[in-house]
């Protein structure tokens, strides 16, 4: 836990692994981390929506982030976790879960460390990436979850 110098922090990131890469989300948005458990499929939704689960009486949709990013599917293993996040869209906030390979670490984030993501030349969309950060030679992709989990089939506007 090298980076945990609270005084210098502007915020903290929870990082997780997805196909060998390390991704980060704002730790204040993380509600809880739970092991993968089966979800109830919802008909006629994109495959990346794994379904809905019962989170202490609330119905919460679960998104498989590998499939959301069109990465190869893998079988869920013992480290597979669901990160439950609070997603803000306009005036409403919703609770959603993302399935990731494993949780990794917690880092301090300062805005100087954050570099804008370069254009990947069309192979991957950078619109959901807030920036890149390097910690000990390791690149961390910082995600804009509000944008990511409000896009496509998850958009609030889709509730037409």
């Amino acid at each position: 836990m090298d980076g945990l110098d609270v005084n210098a922090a502007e915020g903290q990131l929870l990082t997780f692994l997805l196909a060998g890469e390390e991704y980060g989300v704002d730790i204040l948005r993380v509600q809880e981390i739970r092991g993968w458990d089966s979800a109830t499929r919802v008909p006629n939704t994109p495959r990346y929506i794994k379904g809905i689960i019962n989170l202490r009486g609330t119905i919460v949709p679960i998104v498989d982030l590998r499939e959301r990013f069109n990465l190869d599917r893998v079988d869920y293993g013992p480290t597979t976790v669901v990160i439950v996040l609070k997603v803000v869209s306009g005036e409403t906030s919703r609770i959603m879960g993302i399935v990731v390979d494993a949780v990794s670490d917690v880092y301090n984030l300062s805005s100087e460390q954050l570099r804008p993501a370069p254009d990947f030349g069309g192979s991957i969309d950078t619109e959901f990436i807030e920036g890149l950060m390097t910690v000990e030679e390791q690149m961390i992709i910082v995600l804009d979850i509000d944008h990511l989990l409000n896009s496509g089939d998850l958009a609030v506007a889709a509730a037409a």
Partner: protein
Amino acid sequence: MSDSRIEQLKGIFFEEAEEGLETMEQGLLELDEGSKDPELINTIFRAAHSIKGGSGTFGFSELIEFTHSMESLLDAMRSGDKAITTEATSALLESVDHLRALLTDARNNDPIDSESSRPYIDRLNAILGADDAAPSNAAAPAQDASARAAGWNIDFKPHPDLMQSGNDPYLIVREITGLGPAKTTVDVSNVPSWDVLDPENLYLGWTIRLEAAAEEQQIHDAFAWVDDQADIRVEPIEAKPVAAPEAAPAPEAAPEPSPKKAEAAAPAKPPAAPKPRSAKAGSSSIRVSIDKVDALINIVGELVITQSMLGQIEKDFDMSKLEKLRDGLSQLERNTRELQESVMRIRMLPISSVFSRFPRMVRDLSRQLEKKVHLELSGESTELDKTVMEKIGDPLVHLVRNSLDHGLEAPADRLEAGKPETGRIELNAFHQGGNIVIEICDDGRGLPTDRIREKAISKGLMSADDTSSSTEKIHDFIFHPGFSTAKEVSDLSGRGVGLDVVRKNIRALGGSVEVQSSPGEGTKFTIRLPLTLAILDGQLINVGDETYIVPLVSIIESLQIDGKQVNAIAGKAEVYRLREQYIPIVRLYDLFGIEGGERKLDGGLLVVVEGDGQHAGLLVDDLQNQQQVVIKSLDTNYRRVDGVSGATILGDGTVALILDIPGLIKFANDRSRRAETPRLPQDKFALN
């Protein structure tokens, strides 16, 4: 007293005032219909008096002034000095409306426009005989000279029991000192010695020297609620105190009315239409009868006993106690179910709170339309979920207006048709199965079937040579958007926006509305609503590995498919022949894209469902048990899904989707219509 406490008390005052207004309105309507019950006018008077008192406590001087004039007239009517005339009740009813508007302003902390009350007060005083209403606030300007002085000496000697009626002298004194610079002296001479002092009594008195040119009425207003529980003297401060005559008389709740002037009093012009007020939605609350709360406490008590019993068994468990454990668990189940029912019952309110607005509405409308109408309400005690209740009001108002405006004929036409001059409108509510049924019947002319037919043809809803459509089917067209057969657009209805909105709103509540009509005999609208929006009786079904819940109300029957009865139209759309009726078959696994699941029709299970008047047969793998499920919204964290109305949590903690049958049938129809187009591209929103 802290501000939050005052705010809380204010909230109670507004709620009670609202009830008071309703009491007054109902009472006045009964008087209007010629009731002679003397207790009735007392009830109205008391309601007005309570509002006045409360207004005084919270310093709404405009409200005091206004209710005071209403009270004066009511008092004259109560004592018999004044005849109960239609004119008087009308004026009072309109005043009730105005008072309601004033209260809304006060509640929203909007400035109260005291000028707006003037026409109403004038009208009330005109009926009363204004000149004799001596100390009334609406009194002649001649009094103004003496009522305005450089200041006032106020002597306030409350009776010892003042505080026992819930009044707080502090609030009154503060009210007065708020009018301007004041010097307050407390008189403690009456405080007895410690051993005989009763802490619930008030022994203090106050002398206030108010050095402000306040109106005398303002001072009396502050004492409005306590004027019969205190000795109050108000004297103007003048340069020559000796010359001051017997100053202003003590305030009287009821001024002396003058029977002689009564007839001479000309009614004032009716005041201008009140400006529309938006009722700001505050935090809502419900009043729950104490019986319901007691029942709840009883059940919780039982639950605690059951829990401790189970705890005992668990302590040193061996197999011999298995029977006891089983008993305990079944008791627990019963307790839980009862608890659930009782809690649900708290949300249930009698429908009378919706119905109660209709007598007034029908009275006003029938005058406006010059029709004679008798409104009959029944089943007012039928209980309905609060959420449903709030949303059913507007559709009901619309339907009742429709019956009045279009349904009932003018008195002359009625006599000609051999019907009694006075038309009837009936509102009836009752339980039927798991539903609440509300009927709105009139004995008017009935729906103009031919005109509706013409209109439907002209709008292309049916073909001109279609003669087989039943009358019911034609009548159902009136619920189509933009469908109005009214020859002239009236103020009330007939603009073609309406019945479609009524149906939409009722459907949004999970209910349905139908119309039955026979020419010359009348029209009946029947609304069916679910008892509650939170819980539903469901049938669990299996398709593949998935479990779904079908609302029990939409299931007609479940049957095993006889392969010989299955037919295919154009090789695709499959139908099942059930007692001379062809029912489209919906293959759920296909519609929902579920892998696995029974594909063979012959011998399979078909659940025949009905939604929005359409039938369909759902092909399922298995039927499980029936159970009550609590509806959870999918929209909260996700979005609406076609064919699914919500989700619920099953006993094992997993989530099951609740099917929305009307939506599902529509979805299946849409799907088969564009059967040629490929299935939804699965990853159309994915990156890249």
